[in-house]
Structure formats: structure tokens, C-alpha cells
């Protein structure tokens, strides 16, 4: 056997430098075109009067959106506790009722629920007058609060149930063997662990609610989207929508980053 049959060892070929492919160039190009187009549109139609007229209403609208979402989130959280307990209960009636509640609100569009409350309940005005609740269902804002609270209660009940059930049984058993009562085990041992699991779903739920709350503009609540629609119908200037989009994106991104920070902070004892 001659030496010629051996292949001479060579250094591996240098790794080709990654260059942006055609797809990336086109995709990024589309974004660049849209950004330039929007910027050119806004600069070309620059209108200080528009900004003067609508800057403050936009901020007020933002306030309405945030206020509505926060208050219905809290109401929903309170309502979700009995629903979640019902879902986990051994009583078939409680389980069935909780299931129907959750299925109803998760299986139908929020906009239809809001319409049913805002327009539909007006039909029973006499009834609400007699029980003294008409002042509540007369206002678009409180109808929105009512529907959003019930809707988010259904979603939050599922989050809460999932989080509580994610805590291993051993935690309950350990608590029992220490002689703690069920209520104390739930409050001091299970809930804190469940809340870490539930943090991200809860944050997602707030983000979803901020997005969904734009619907209340249709029933004449002047939230951020309502103000935007009003501004557009008066000026026919498309930048009204661009400003609203930027504001919504800013809130959602801020919330997402805050959640990441909070999760890092809360789970720092789990890092190895």
C-alpha cells in the first residue's frame, strides 16, 4: 500500500460569513418602506393644531382605558375565586355551575356580551328600576365594567385553578402533618407558590384585557380607541390611528417587560 492512498489532512474550510438572505432583505425592506411611508405621511401632513386639540383627550382616553381595565381586573379577581373553587369542588352542582359560567364567557365574543348587557338589559328597565339598579345599567361605562369583569372572571378562574392544581399534593399533606388548618395551608403554603405560576398568565390576561377594552368604544365609552375614532371621524387624518397604535404598543410592551422583571425577582430563590 502506497502513501498516496492516504488523504492529506487539511484544515476545514472557513465557515462562510452569514449574509442576509433575500427573504430577510425583502421582509426588512417592507418594514422600512412602511416606516418611511408613515413618517413621510406624518411629516407631510404635520398639523400642530391637531396635536393641540387631541393630545389631552388622547391622554384622558388612555386614562379611561387603564382605569376600566384595572377596575374590572380587580372585580374579576374577586369573582374568580368562588368560580375557581367551584371548578375544583367535589359537589357536582357547584362544578357544573362553575363550568357553565366559564364556558359561557370564554365561548362567546366579548363584543356580543357587551351588546347584550348594554342594549339588551335596557329592555328590562322596569325590573332594574324596581330593584334600584337602573342607574348602573344606564351608563355605558358601568355596562362595560360589568361585562369585562364577568368575562375576565371566567378567564382568571381558569388561571387560578391551573395554578392551585400545579402545587404538588405533598404541600397539602406536609401542612396537614404539621397540624395546620386547611385555610392556613391554603393561604400560607399553597397560594404563594400558586401565585408564582400564575404571574405570567395574569399578566397576559391584563394585556388581553387592554386590547379587548378597545371594544367599549363601540358602545360610546370614550376610551383611547373611542377618542381615536372621534378624532378620525372629525379630521379624516390617518395619523390619529398611528398615534393610538403607538400608545397601545407602548403599554403592552411596558407590561411585558415589567412581567419579565417581576418573574425574575420572584423566582430568584429557584435559580441554581
Amino acid at each position, binding site marked *: 500500500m502506497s502513501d498516496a492512498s492516504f488523504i492529506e489532512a487539511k484544515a476545514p474550510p472557513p465557515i462562510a460569513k452569514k449574509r442576509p438572505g433575500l427573504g430577510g432583505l425583502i421582509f426588512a425592506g417592507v*418594514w422600512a418602506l412602511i416606516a418611511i411611508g408613515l413618517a413621510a405621511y406624518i411629516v407631510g401632513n404635520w398639523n400642530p393644531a391637531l396635536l393641540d386639540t387631541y393630545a389631552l383627550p388622547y391622554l384622558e382616553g388612555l386614562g379611561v382605558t387603564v382605569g376600566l381595565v384595572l377596575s374590572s381586573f380587580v372585580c374579576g379577581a374577586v369573582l374568580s375565586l368562588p368560580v375557581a373553587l367551584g371548578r375544583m369542588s367535589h359537589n357536582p352542582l357547584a362544578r357544573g355551575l362553575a363550568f357553565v359560567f366559564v364556558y359561557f364567557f370564554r365561548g362567546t365574543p366579548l363584543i356580543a356580551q357587551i351588546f347584550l348587557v348594554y342594549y339588551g338589559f335596557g329592555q328590562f328597565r322596569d325590573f332594574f328600576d324596581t330593584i334600584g339598579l337602573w342607574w348602573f345599567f344606564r351608563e355605558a361605562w358601568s355596562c362595560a365594567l360589568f361585562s369585562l369583569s364577568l368575562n375576565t372572571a371566567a378567564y382568571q378562574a381558569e388561571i387560578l385553578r391551573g395554578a392551585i392544581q400545579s402545587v404538588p399534593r405533598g404541600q397539602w399533606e406536609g401542612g396537614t402533618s404539621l397540624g395546620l388548618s386547611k385555610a392556613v395551608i391554603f393561604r400560607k403554603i399553597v397560594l404563594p407558590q400558586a401565585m408564582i405560576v400564575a404571574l405570567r398568565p395574569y399578566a397576559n390576561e391584563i394585556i388581553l384585557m387592554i386590547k379587548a377594552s378597545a371594544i367599549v368604544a363601540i358602545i360610546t365609552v370614550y376610551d383611547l380607541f373611542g377618542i381615536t375614532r372621534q378624532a378620525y371621524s372629525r379630521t379624516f387624518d390617518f395619523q390619529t390611528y398611528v398615534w393610538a397604535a403607538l400608545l397601545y*404598543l407602548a403599554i403592552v410592551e411596558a407590561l411585558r417587560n415589567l412581567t419579565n422583571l417581576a418573574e425574575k425577582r420572584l423566582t430568584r430563590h429557584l435559580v441554581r
Partner: protein
Amino acid sequence: MESLTLLGFGPTGWGDEIAWGVVVTASLALATLPIGLVFGFLLALAKQTEDKLLKLSADIYTTIFRGLPELLTLFIVYFGVNNALQSFSRATGLPDIALSSFVSGMVALGFVFSAFASEVFLSAFRAIPRGQYEGSSALGLSRYQTMILVVLPQLIRIALPGLGNLWMNLLKDTALVSVIGLTDILRQSQIAARVTREPFLFFGTAIVIYLVLTLLSSVAIGGIDRWTKRGEMAK
């Protein structure tokens, strides 16, 4: 009994109008689904490439369409794209083209669906072990064959629950398109409610129809789930 006449078919009832609304809602959701799935899949591929520009562009897409309210996306497509098309046709002298509310709904919901679907596909891709790719390359399969014959069948199985949720959201989001005038279930019930002054009856009917649609969807998704898992051992 009066309400039954109102919901009946024929000239005195609103049954036929609402039934047409069901057809419109279902066809909008079904027409959006394939577009959203294909774009979502492509976006997921784009997010795992080494090409930084492509990845960045796909991330921008997801950030925008996941962060904007669906209603705002819809209005931006309906008014923004129509404005742009109008000025384009005016500038070039071509005949006017405009997006109908159905097409606008399809585009806007397609954007939203694909942005969320790309994240579902991405996490499904990450759940497929490297060994599957190495095994197929050891068998001499091309990259395309690996994708179609090895990765995709497993990907569908992993992604199906997430995609099922997205389908439910899509079905519910079609109700938003009624705001820009699409004659879907909600729009028809709104018209009926206004004419007959029976809003509770008609919005209640609409809600029941949506419940039936989501119930049917969850049955169908369960069936598809069993079908994708037919190769797995019975547990």
C-alpha cells in the same frame, strides 16, 4: 310565542337573515385560517434562522400584531389600506380599488392569527429533539423531505392544542368585523334588534349561536387531535 315568530324563517322572521350571518361568520373564519397558518409557519421558520435581518423582521411583525388591539388592526387595515389604495389609484390613474369589509377582516385577522400562530409553531419546533433531524440526515433525506416527512407530522401533533385555542379566538374575533359593516351573525342580530326593539332576544340568540359554533369546533378539534395521535400507543 311572539319571539318564535321573530326568530322564524320567512318574511316576518329574522331566522333566514341570521342564518346567512352564520354562513358569513363561518366563511370568514375558514377563509382566514389557511392564510394565518401558512404565514404563521413561515414566520416561525424565519424566527429560527441564523439570518439576523429575517429574524428581526419577524419579531417586529409579532410584536406589532400581538400588541395592537384586534379592533385597531382592523380599522388600520380598513381605513389605512383603503386610503393608500385610493391615493395610489388616483396617482396612477388606474380604476379605483378598495378592500371590502370581508377582505379587510380577512387581512386583519390573518395578521393577528399568524402572529400568534408563529409563537405556537416556534415552541412546537423547539419541542422536536435534534435527533430527529440527525436521524433523517443519516437516512439521506433532503432538508425539504426532513421537513415534510419527519418534522411536520410531529409538529402538527404538538402544536394542535395551541392552534385550537387560536381558532376559537379567530372565530370570536370575526364578530369584530361587524363593526365595519360585515353582515355576520352579530351585525344581523343588531339590525334585527333595532327594527324589532327586542335587543335581548336577538343578542341572546347571537350568543347562543356562537356557543354552538365553539362547541362544534371543540368537538372537531378533539377529533383531529385523536387523528394525529392515531400512531401513538394506547395508554
